[in-house]
């Protein structure tokens, strides 16, 4: 494997209404790692993901994927949004959701025949959901919904996976089976970038960790950076002042007293 990092983030700053949500983030991730993004609520974890994937415009900064800009690397990237970010009452079947994973590769106008359908069913089978293919998504449980999302990402057949809290609101058994799938992906040399909230499992799940609280607290192999000091810096009282200042600044800059 070459020395080009799978993900390189340079001086990334994201503002919402002139208030920094992410401030001067700089890190690089070597390929083939499972990376956990850790930080308290409002630390900008999801924002980091969205800024990296160009869904929100950063104020400044540059992101490279395998040394390439986003547009050129898009086909090698898969994204799993937060489960709660979508409308699960939408009129769509499980299989149709999974099929979305194909369009990035094949194009939006590609004809999806039996071969593609088989691929999608195969992905569903990998997450143990093939019997739910024709089910309407509103009938799925939380863990099943998450597995459908994972199946869609598997179908994208990417090299770099971004996942926003894939274990949120998921039962233990599902968490374990998802984790096994992620380990399989890692074994194939894929890079996984996962926003995570359960501090207890960090050491078991990840080999690289990014600790975030608006600014970057630490980034590196879990064994090196996962320390009490870094944790207290990430979750410590220091951030309360920042939160307060952010709120104040938001009011001032939008003209409220």
């Amino acid at each position, binding site marked *: 494997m070459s020395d080009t990092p799978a993900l390189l983030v340079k001086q990334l700053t994201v503002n919402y209404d002139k208030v920094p949500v992410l401030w001067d983030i700089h890190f690089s991730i070597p390929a083939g790692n499972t990376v956990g993004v850790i930080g308290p609520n409002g630390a900008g974890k999801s924002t980091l993901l*969205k800024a990296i*994937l*160009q*869904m929100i415009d950063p104020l400044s900064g540059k992101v490279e994927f395998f040394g390439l800009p986003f*547009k050129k690397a*898009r086909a090698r*990237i*898969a*994204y799993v*949004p937060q489960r709660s*970010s*979508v*409308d699960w009452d*939408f*009129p*769509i*079947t499980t299989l*149709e*959701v999974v099929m*979305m994973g194909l*369009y*990035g590769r094949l194009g*939006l*106008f590609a004809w999806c025949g039996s071969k593609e359908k088989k691929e999608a069913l195969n992905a569903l089978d990998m997450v143990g959901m093939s019997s739910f293919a024709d089910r*309407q998504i509103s009938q799925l449980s939380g863990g099943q919904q998450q597995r459908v999302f994972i199946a*869609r990402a598997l179908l*994208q057949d990417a090299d770099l996976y*971004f996942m926003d809290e894939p274990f949120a609101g998921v039962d233990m058994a599902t968490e374990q089976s998802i984790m096994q799938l992620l380990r399989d992906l890692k074994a194939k040399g894929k890079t996984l970038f996962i926003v995570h909230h359960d501090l207890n499992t960090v050491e078991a799940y990840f080999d690289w960790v990014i600790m975030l609280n608006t600014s970057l607290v630490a980034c590196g192999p879990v064994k090196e950076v996962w320390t009490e000091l870094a944790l207290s810096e990430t979750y410590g009282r220091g951030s309360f002042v920042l939160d307060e200042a952010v709120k104040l600044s938001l009011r001032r800059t939008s003209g409220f007293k």
Partner: protein
Amino acid sequence: MSYSLLDFFTDPVLRAPTLGSIFMCISSSLVGVIVVIRKRSLLGEALSHASYPGIALGVTLLAAFFTPSSDGFALAVLGCAFISSLLGMLLIDLLQKRFRVKDDAALCFVLSSFFGLGVLIASRIQTTHALWYKQVQAFLYGQTATMRDIHILIYAALLVFTCVTLGLLYREIQILTFDRSFGQSIGINSKFVETAVLLLTVLAIVIGIRSVGVVMMAGMLIAPALASRQLTHTLKHMFIVSGVIGAISGFCGNYFSVMIPFYLKAEKLSLPTGPMILLTASFLCLLALLFAPQRGLITRMLRVLKFKRNCQLENILKALWKEEKKEGVLLQEVASSQNLSSFKTWLRMRKLLSKGWLSIENHRFILSDKGEKKAREVVRLHRLWELYLVHLGHCKDKVHASAEEMEHVLTPELEKQLTDFLRNPMHDPHDQPIPHKEGKE
């Protein structure tokens, strides 16, 4: 005069309004699907009202130069309506983004202010230019009777345009509406798709106001889409069903407005087409809301009743099994123990007899082998659930009520999971034996 169904498509006077309305209703029903799944139903209402000042102003300005009856005039007025509606849309956007007005407030503000402006212009010309005023009024409540063959072509062309655009953008719309951020991550240009959808919405509204009018247009967007949402569970089918309901409404509106006065022998009774179209669509929507096989209110109520009856049946079986009376029980005894009226008890017993769960001897009901098996299953679920709750840390005196409910709900899969989780238990928390499945005594 009496017309056959076919006459509505061939008669030189009837065919233009009928076909025109059908095409227009299909396009608004299709666009309505997007509006409904994006949960932006009020947008249709706001945009249709926002077109009114455009119509009033357009008629006033254009009538000074053209004869109001020419085809070009009608199209030009629709153009003005389109621009006016578009301005309304931009204002909504501006209010939300710049002035941070909430979505619903911005929509209501644009709806009422634009409509008010339209009313003002219309009332100005009411007395001075009565002919122009009539033209404006035609758009307020819709008027199909004056449509000519050229309108069939115009509306057909607009329908084809709508269908082609929707067909091309189908996957984008599906992905972006369901999961916007995923759509962006695979490279869908969300701004382009959203602008296209909004323009299509404005277009569908402007097409529609000629038939059903500014005031009722939003209903034509929403009603067929809502009905089809009740009946389908994929977006593709939702578009198809909505389009069909739209077409039916468009036809029936015209049919009823001509034929009802005829049937009632009241030739002077005038039933305007626009409201008839909307009433048909609303009626179909109401039917779907009430009777849709999965989501309909009545169908769900029937299912609740059936479930309740099933609970009563199972409770009776359970009681008979527990009493273990070889000589059987009387109807009255069951009624008092189950707290049911004797008539209801009689009905339930008849059902149990017909299922073969009971037999009857000398007016006494006796549990059959089949019934006993069923009763044991219910009791098993009840006691498994009690044990499970105690396992979770609940007090054993308080688990009975929950088990009374769960015994009727638990599926065989869940039962298996419970059995495995509790390691195939023999006794419930109250030291009662948990009956095993048949053959596993």
